[in-house]
């Protein structure tokens, strides 16, 4: 279980990162602040829905990219990758170990971070649905992990630290603001598809929506907070969204690995 050894070391290293700690503190304060201010007037689920659309969906991918964009390139540039690969680890162990290690570090930070808002929300006057809250936290951790996977994959493929950073910024704008903007326009544009296209406009629209992990996350949490997690009318769509998140989590590092395998250090 060589990747597990790499993951554990990477976890211990990443959890000490000032960036991770700092960004997590900012994140906790934001969610706690919204929870505190809104708890008198809105239910816990509404508070989560609000913070979700305000910053969870935008900030979590950003933190993940910041924490993981240099996972491989940073080590390659500094030379610590030579230390790692001098030991009996394969390059696949390194890439997947890093995805697991950093995703675990970030998930730990998120889980800890969601404790304070939970306490605030539990003060009332509205009741906190603890089950929903836990699933919500898990979905945030999953979103973070997916973006860690994308960042590590990109980091493994990038030829230099600068490319890795530029790419991470590009990926963020692609997945977070741009995709949502373009998807709305595309949806409008393809409202009526010509007859020869074997897909309905709705199918194409949904595919566009779901293939972006950030919007897949939004879809899932909206259903969850509406009391219809993996059930109700959109159950099929939600399963697709979940599958899409898992697909990204595996595919992005895999593609990065394929490039990394062929590269000279």
């Amino acid at each position: 279980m060589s990747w597990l050894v790499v993951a554990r070391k990477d976890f211990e290293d990443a959890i000490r990162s000032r960036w991770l700690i700092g960004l997590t503190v900012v994140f906790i304060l934001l969610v706690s602040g919204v929870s505190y201010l809104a708890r008198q007037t809105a239910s816990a689920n509404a508070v989560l829905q609000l913070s979700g659309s305000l910053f969870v969906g935008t900030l979590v991918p950003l933190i993940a990219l910041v924490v993981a964009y240099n996972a491989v390139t940073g080590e390659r540039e500094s030379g610590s990758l030579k230390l790692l690969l001098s030991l009996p680890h394969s390059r696949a162990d390194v890439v997947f170990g890093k995805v697991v290690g950093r995703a675990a570090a970030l998930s730990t930070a998120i889980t800890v971070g969601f404790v304070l808002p939970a306490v605030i929300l539990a003060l009332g006057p509205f009741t906190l649905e603890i089950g929903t809250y836990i699933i919500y936290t898990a979905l945030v951790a999953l979103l973070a992990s997916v973006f860690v996977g994308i960042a590590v994959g990109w980091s493994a493929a990038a030829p230099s630290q600068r490319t890795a950073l530029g790419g991470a910024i590009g990926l963020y704008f692609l997945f977070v603001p741009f995709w949502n903007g373009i998807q709305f326009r595309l949806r409008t544009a393809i409202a009526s598809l010509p007859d020869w296209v074997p897909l309905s406009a709705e199918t194409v629209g949904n595919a566009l929506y779901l293939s972006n992990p950030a919007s897949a996350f939004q879809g899932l949490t909206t259903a969850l907070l509406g009391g219809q997690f993996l059930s109700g009318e959109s159950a099929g769509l939600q399963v697709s969204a979940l599958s899409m998140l898992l697909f990204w989590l595996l595919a992005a590092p895999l593609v990065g690995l394929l490039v990394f395998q062929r590269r000279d250090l």
Partner: protein
Amino acid sequence: MSAIQLSNVTKRYGDLTAVRNLDLTVESGEIYGFLGPNGAGKSTTINMLLDFVRPTEGTITVLGEPVGDSSVDIRERTGVLPEGFDVYSRLTGRKHIEFAIESKEADNDPDAILDRVGLADAGDRAAGEYSKGMRQRLVLGMALVGDPELLILDEPSTGLDPGGAKEMRDIVQQEADRGATVFFSSHVLGQVEAVCDRVGILHKGELVTEDSIEGLREETGSEETLILTVDDATDDDLDPIRRLDGVSGAAVDGPTVTVSCESGVKNEVIATLSEAGIEIEDIETESTSLEELFLSYTDGEGVVEKDGRSTGSGGGGDGTGSQPPEATPEGRQ
């Protein structure tokens, strides 16, 4: 079985050929010193052994297994001190050793390893606070984990003071006595002379010579160079010296007379010059050492780091790169 075998290995980076048609065999159990100036291709060769970079042509086997497909298996049985590495600055020295132990599924005691490389007191400090020499020791410690069959050490003395370099050589010797094969590179011959069974000298990507230290010594013979500062001498004054047995050459340049001779005839040379009425003001001798032989193979590029600073203990270059290091002034009067 040979521990390392490179057959006709070439590595090109674009137009640049870092290593050319290299054939090299390291036998199991020997200490092999891989010498050459910086930029000769030593690290490229070592990086190919470790599968960090892939050869353009040729085949490499380490511990009987082809590099590439079996590189993880190879690294399970190998301890490595790579060149240009960095430590994990947020993790302690002990964590590094523990990481190596877990990675190799070994059962070493981290504190015993730290003690062996002289870091017993620094194990709880973050490795980011370590000096260059301490980092070098730490990674040597990681390399020793699991009693590997083969040690590959790339410029292990970098950043170490003379005492540290000596400790490093002692560890190399202990590992060899245990039965390990040691392959290590250096740009300073003085560091490998004392411990190596065989050395290979790499220059501009090609192996220019390969021999035992004894073999190299025979090649250099026992010639010495006498450098005399005189009041006045002409080339003709040197003729009686040239006729002496054991003198292979003499030359004059201003007040400096240089005589190449066997060490036994030095006094005769000096006496002959005095008889010719030449006043000798100063005498220096240089033994034609292995170091100079090394330099003769490498166009005098032996001892200087890329940035112009000399490191390590044995060579003690002065940073100009053109003068022979370790000129041993003996007969200064």
